């Protein structure tokens, strides 16, 4: 629900901590600036780049993106909080997204989601203890001809039967597409990212309330 407010607690940002965006990331963000008339228009690419590099966009990263783009940090948060693809707390190394649109539902996405949940031992919006997997659902992945489908990071798994879930999740390369990557965006972050931090966004709050 894009319009629901994220929690209002103001994020704590340590001003003295070293910058978390590397020069390479900053340069990559700057390389998008000539494409647009305004600096703010490079914000969505910037958020993609940072999320690919760090695994999530923390409040500190938002401030630094604002620095690079020379816009107020509030605008970065304003934009970021609208889109479901960006998260401000760490998620697992691989993010599993199960489609729950009508096409997938009539082909059995409920059973698929249940199988993923029991295989990973987490609920929706949860992250496994070892930081390997997070689970989300999406409204439509535009692969309705291969329903039910699920996305692991970049790789689309098509016509997934619940009994295949275990095998797919055990495959170490289950998130990699065969097609050569473009240099424009980094690979999603390598290695498990921290899971101990307190999750802050509304989707996690909804999970807790359940």
């Amino acid at each position: 629900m894009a319009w629901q407010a994220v929690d209002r607690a103001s994020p704590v940002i340590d001003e003295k901590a070293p910058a978390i965006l590397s020069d390479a990331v900053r340069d990559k963000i700057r390389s998008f600036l000539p494409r647009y008339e305004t600096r703010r228009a490079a914000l969505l690419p910037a958020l993609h780049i940072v999320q690919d590099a760090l695994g999530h966009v923390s409040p500190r990263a938002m401030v630094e993106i604002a620095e690079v783009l020379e816009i107020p940090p509030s605008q970065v948060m304003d934009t970021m909080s609208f889109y479901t693809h960006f998260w401000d707390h760490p998620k697992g190394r691989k993010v599993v997204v199960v489609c729950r649109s009508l096409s997938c539902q009539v082909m059995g996405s409920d059973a698929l989601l249940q199988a993923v949940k029991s295989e990973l031992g987490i609920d929706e919006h949860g992250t496994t203890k070892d930081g390997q997997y997070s689970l989300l659902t999406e409204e439509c992945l535009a692969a309705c001809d291969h329903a039910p489908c699920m996305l692991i990071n970049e790789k689309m798994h098509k016509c997934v039967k619940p009994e295949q879930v275990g095998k797919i999740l055990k495959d170490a390369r289950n998130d990699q597409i065969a097609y050569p990557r473009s240099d424009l965006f980094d690979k999603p972050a390598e290695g498990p990212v921290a899971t101990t931090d307190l999750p802050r966004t509304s989707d996690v709050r909804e999970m807790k309330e359940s």
Partner: protein
Amino acid sequence: MSKYEPVLLKNVGVEGIRSLKVYRERGGYSAAEKALKNHTPEEIVEIIKASNLRGRGGAGFPAGMKWSFLPPDRKITYLCVNADESEPGTFCNRVLMEQDPHQLLEGIIIAGYATRTTTAYIYMRVEFHEQFHVLQKALDEAYAAGLFGKKLFGTDYQLECHIHRGAGAYVCGEETGLIESLEGKRGWPRIKPPFPAIEGLFRRPTVVNNVETICCVPHIVERGANWFKSIGSESSAGPKLYTISGPVKRPGCYEAPLGISCRDLIFGDEFGQGMIDGRKVKGCIPGGLSVGILTEAELDCKLDFDDVRKYGLLGLGTAGAIVIPHDADIRQVLANVARFYSHESCGQCTQCREGTNWMYKIAMRIALGAGRISDLDLLVEVTRNMGMMPGLSICGLPDGAAYPIRTIVEKFRDEFEQHIRRQEPGRVEHVLKRLNPAVYELPILGQRGPRWVA
């Protein structure tokens, strides 16, 4: 029906068609060359107007007309290609981009030239990972071959093209929402007028077209407006990509002249080839989720821009058919539809933000087995009080929510009433008492439920 020769999908399955070399060998970019060398931009607009090409993104607005609204004295024009394909049941843009990326790029060159565009943006939804890499590689190749940049085909025309990735918001498929999102803001649709043709991206004249519309352009330039008009029916000209999903034998993306019937699409040999596992059709949502539903008896509806309205549907939409099998619970279908819109409403207009959310709560209550007959009337009443057609909202999303919910309730009312009558006595009170936990614990459609069901 005589054998139809595909136009938009003619290159699908050709070995190596994603590379520029193979695409050129098959006559690619000749239409762009012809357009730039032999025609003025105004002539191209006239050709597109004469061809009666209507926008394939859902609304069916004539593309040539849209281009002619641009102010003649403009200096900078933008072209946005809408590849934010998020409508459930629709995936024809995905097929076009991953199977034949250069066709889209050629269309962009011609459309850009006709509108005197300086920069074109392809707004692509973020879930298209493979498609992004395919298209980006094709774009890099085209740049390297001098098909984008300065002095295209030896003329003075110059065009830049960039791919801009979205971030998971359905409403960014609305043209002004897309423009806002491109500017790095929340994808909130703008109040119109001013229309994007006058004041769009970065407050410059802007044209927003769907991928499929753009892909039609090279073929029209190459083979002429009359050829294009000869396909399909009078008011709905040209080839159209139909997609079909659900429990059919051959789900997928098929090309046909506009105006095939829904029954053909499901049972035709060239298309869906009938249902799997001996299932029967309960209904079919013929054009992406937002247009509404057809019952089994109404399957003979012709899928073109006009005929669908006779069956109480919003329009052709994106021609992405979702088949609902006879064993699907219509209450769950309704709850799924309602959840989609309540999740994707951007929250600007009150009746959409609240209306979609309340419809979801009511639909959820019915799906939980705690419905009341009066709920059905209530749902219909809500749908009549939201959207652009009563003149209450900024964009068409609430219309898109109203049509499927209203048609599902009205056309399957008997079934709903049967379910409601069969509910165990006291179920309503039981659910109402345990509202919050009940909604979350029951494994209906999985996941996030509303916090209250009133």
